[in-house]
């Protein structure tokens, strides 16, 4: 009898593992270069795990490889959501190493950086099609959101039926215009925040729990 009970319990554990939705959701943080994706990823990781994801910089393409922070547990209103944060390189259709020379970089370093950036963007696009369960799309609210890259990426995300949260970042800056972003993508909810200053992160976490929980 004990053998049968053990067997039944074992089968139950296996089937529970197969059919419950306990795996962390992989949430990709996407957006154009310099929107503040890594700053946000670090803010989320530090708030809930104490660790950072990667270095932040004002130089475009500081993040040249997708970086992942696993098992970030976010608790909101009694609800716990476990996500893997994937901080991705800023998506673009062009990379010219000469732009990096303006940031006091030697040519060899600039060429290497541009090569790594192109590989990172290619990888991020592949991930978007194959490997993410949801998207946090970060935009710099001081810049025009009506760009082709934004339009294409939002279209790609929608075509994959991925849940997407649009964040209007950098609200601490005087030129911030959240409404402009809301107008650009009226089919999505836009949440304002300053990842740098940690402003409105409570609402961001509530929405993460709501969208990806």
């Amino acid at each position, binding site marked *: 009898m004990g053998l049968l009970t053990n067997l039944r319990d074992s089968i139950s554990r296996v089937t529970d593992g197969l059919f419950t939705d306990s795996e962390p959701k992989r949430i990709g943080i996407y957006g154009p270069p310099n929107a503040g994706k890594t700053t946000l990823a670090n803010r989320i990781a530090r708030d809930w795990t104490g660790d950072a994801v990667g270095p932040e910089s004002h130089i475009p393409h500081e993040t040249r490889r997708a970086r992942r922070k696993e098992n970030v547990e976010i608790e909101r209103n009694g609800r716990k959501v476990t996500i893997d944060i994937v901080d991705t390189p800023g998506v673009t*259709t062009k990379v*010219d190493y000469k732009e990096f020379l303006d940031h006091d970089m030697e040519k060899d370093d600039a060429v290497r950086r541009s090569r790594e950036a192109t590989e990172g963007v290619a990888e991020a*696009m592949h991930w978007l099609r194959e490997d993410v369960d949801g998207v946090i799309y970060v935009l710099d609210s001081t810049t025009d959101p009506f760009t*082709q890259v934004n*339009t*294409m990426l939002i*279209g*790609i995300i929608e*075509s994959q039926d991925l849940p997407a949260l649009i964040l209007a970042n950098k609200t601490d800056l005087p030129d911030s215009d959240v409404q402009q972003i809301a107008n650009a993508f009226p089919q999505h909810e836009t949440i304002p925040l300053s990842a740098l200053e940690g402003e409105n992160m409570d609402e961001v976490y509530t929405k993460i729990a709501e969208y990806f929980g």
Partner: protein
Amino acid sequence: MPGATSGVDGNDDPSDDGVRIDMISGARMEGLTGMEKIRLILDGVRDGNIVILEEGLSPDEESKLIEVTMTEISPDDFTGIEIETYPKPDANSQSFLDKLMGRESAQKLTVIGPANRIETLHKDENLISTLVSRK
């Protein structure tokens, strides 16, 4: 299949003193696979041409176009592409059957060119204005 971007008179580089524009009809793209479309576009753009697609690409094809473009960028040779389309038509305007079958309404004129030769001056839902420079 002959490349849409090879010179009609056998001269493969007719754009020495001008800018060449390839306008590719929806019918021409219809029978091609996603990768064939991307190859057709990138081969033309890498030759310095401006490619105009009558019906644009699907989101999945756009995603692959970015990915393949990134793999082909090389210093002092090819810095990538500039691409502009009219905003995607309202999803509500799609027919029920299109939505059911997951078909995108891809009727969106698309302009693609080498990043170092084409610059968008203005874009709204009715007008795309670009500045194209010579080689």
